[in-house]
């Protein structure tokens, strides 16, 4: 590579002496509407629409992070729109890249290649030189072939893998910087949007390249998950933070971090009836849209059934609900519901219910959130149930799951969704606790279910602990799940100590005397 001076077009102001901003030097104003798709689902959303054309972006990450895959997405997206695309490779050969692209299903047939990788003959040549440095010998032929190719093709998209190779062709850091800037400027003046990779590591930092580019996309890889983040995007805002990323058989997919404040929808905070008059009475109407309700209780007490009862009623109004089950098998849940007169199969056939089983350790929280978003935004679901909170924490990969759950719930709340969180408490009886995972602060409504041991019989009670948007009945009632459905009895005014689990009958005559 060398410093090729092209005469700038007359309408382009002279370069700023001190600035290293390639696009600034190019002097072309970009309207905020023009965006170039990266071809990666989700990444365009992170970039608020895509890349700004005719700029140079750095893509950095360690080995196996998906840099080349992202580059292929970028070029394939351009080729699909009929743009001229050029892949400049300094590491892998054209055959290798085409073969790899084929396995992932990319169509690279309309993409031009400039293969600058060393050929096998290089190795079999008996002697290599030592009289001059590689910078003196190799730079010129490489530069020449790039110039010729770019000037004849005039590509609109260029992907260069990897820019750090040029470091070996520069005498020193200053030369490298000057050459890279000049090279990027040359490409941009030819009308290209450039994506170039760097092989940055602790021993070979690439900070200089980060300063020189108009945008920086980082790819990261930890045993738990792959992460994409953007740290710089000149001329545009972007969604900050770490976004979950997947490399699959069909390429790369990015799941933008959920920012609840970005989503808002007008809705009426009306009550959703459960369809059980006594329960509605306890809740003074029902659960409101846009609220988060925790249904808490020990194992087998009927929490999921209670949640599905709300959905059954909603389905009657033609509304769609979604249940994400983390622990139970879908079949078991469906059979259980059918047995208590909740016609889940009919509801699913009519599209008013979707039961999604989440396989353990298969999804990241961002990915899960993107699934939920799809249900809410595309499928118009109005009730979302997560069964259960501890299942969510155990099944999803990555840390800080309470924060993710919080963000998801806030998002759903902003979208006017009635959120039902099923929370299992470990103790069957004993000291009462709302939840064991520290999420009760999230809840607008808390409904609890308890076992009671009364005269040698195990019975169930239901009560409301909290309701933000309305008052509620403070009494505890008996609840029964029968084959005709959920039955809620009269307030258990003759009992005391339900919350402690040590239930006693209230001795009425004694009380009257006092």
């Amino acid at each position, binding site marked *: 590579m060398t410093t090729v001076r092209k005469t700038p077009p007359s309408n382009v102001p002279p370069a700023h002496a001190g600035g290293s901003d390639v696009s600034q030097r190019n002097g072309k104003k970009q309207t905020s509407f023009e965006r170039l798709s990266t071809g990666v689902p989700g990444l365009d959303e992170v970039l608020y629409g895509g890349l700004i054309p005719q700029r140079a972006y750095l893509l950095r990450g360690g080995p196996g992070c998906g840099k080349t895959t992202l580059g292929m997405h970028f070029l394939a997206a351009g080729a699909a729109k009929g743009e001229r695309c050029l892949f400049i490779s300094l590491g892998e050969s054209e055959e290798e890249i085409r073969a790899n692209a084929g396995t992932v299903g990319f169509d690279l047939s309309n993409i031009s290649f400039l293969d600058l990788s060393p050929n096998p003959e290089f190795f079999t040549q008996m*002697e290599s*030189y*030592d*009289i*001059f440095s590689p910078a*003196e010998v190799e730079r010129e032929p490489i530069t020449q072939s790039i110039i010729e190719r770019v000037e004849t093709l005039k590509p609109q998209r260029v992907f260069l893998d990897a820019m750090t190779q040029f470091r070996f062709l520069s005498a020193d850091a200053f030369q490298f910087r000057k050459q890279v800037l000049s090279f990027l400027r040359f490409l941009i003046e030819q009308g290209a949007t450039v994506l170039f990779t760097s092989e940055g590591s602790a021993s070979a930092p690439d900070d200089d390249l980060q300063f020189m580019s108009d945008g920086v996309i980082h790819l990261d890889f930890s045993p738990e998950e792959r992460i994409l983040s953007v740290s710089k995007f000149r001329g545009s805002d972007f969604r900050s933070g770490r976004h979950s990323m997947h490399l699959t058989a069909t390429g790369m997919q990015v799941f933008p971090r959920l920012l609840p404040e970005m989503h808002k929808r007008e809705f009426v905070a009306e009550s959703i009836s459960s369809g059980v008059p006594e329960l509605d009475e306890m809740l003074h109407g029902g659960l409101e849209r846009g609220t988060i309700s925790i249904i808490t209780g020990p194992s087998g007490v009927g929490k999921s059934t209670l949640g599905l009862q709300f959905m059954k009623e909603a389905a009657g109004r033609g509304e769609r609900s979604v249940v994400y089950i983390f622990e139970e098998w879908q079949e078991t849940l469906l059979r259980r519901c059918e047995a208590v007169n909740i016609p889940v199969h009919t509801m699913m056939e009519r599209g008013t219910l979707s039961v999604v089983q989440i396989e353990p350790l298969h999804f990241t929280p961002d990915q899960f959130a993107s699934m939920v978003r799809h249900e809410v935004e595309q499928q118009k679901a109005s009730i979302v149930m997560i069964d259960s909170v501890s299942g969510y924490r155990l099944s999803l990969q990555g840390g800080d799951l309470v924060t993710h759950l919080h963000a998801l719930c806030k998002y759903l709340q902003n979208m006017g969704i009635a959120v039902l969180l099923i929370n299992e408490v470990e103790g069957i009886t004993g000291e009462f606790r709302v939840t064991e995972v520290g999420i009760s602060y999230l809840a607008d409504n808390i409904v609890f279910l308890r076992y009671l041991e009364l005269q040698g019989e195990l019975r169930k009670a239901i009560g409301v602990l909290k309701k933000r948007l309305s008052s509620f009945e403070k009494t505890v009632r008996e609840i029964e799940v029968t084959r005709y459905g959920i039955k809620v009895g009269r307030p258990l005014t003759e009992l005391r100590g339900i919350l402690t689990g040590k239930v006693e009958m209230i001795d009425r005559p004694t009380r009257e005397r006092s």
Partner: protein
Amino acid sequence: MKTKAAILLVNRNQRNLELLAEFLGKGGYALSTASSLEEFDQALAEENDVGVALVDITGFDQSIWERCEQLRSRKKPFLVVSPRQSAAIQQASLSHGAKGVMIKPLVVQELMGLVKSMLEEQE
């Protein structure tokens, strides 16, 4: 116009010779090359218009210095190219008549400048 004097390139490495020929050839110099002591002797035996010589000592033994002495006796200025910075090589080179010692890798522009000034001096 007088043709430029020839440069004798002595180098055991064929690829190095090619590269030297490529860069110096751009300067318009006539070149002759030698990649072994025999070829070097032959080049010295032939009465030609070698102006200056560039001797890469890499891969040669002590007998290279005898040839250097011959260059000196014929008043042919020459530069020694050394694979590394070494006081012993530097001393041996200068004591056998070298104008200077260059350490690999060479910088093309520097080499061209030196060759040019040496040839000018000779004229």
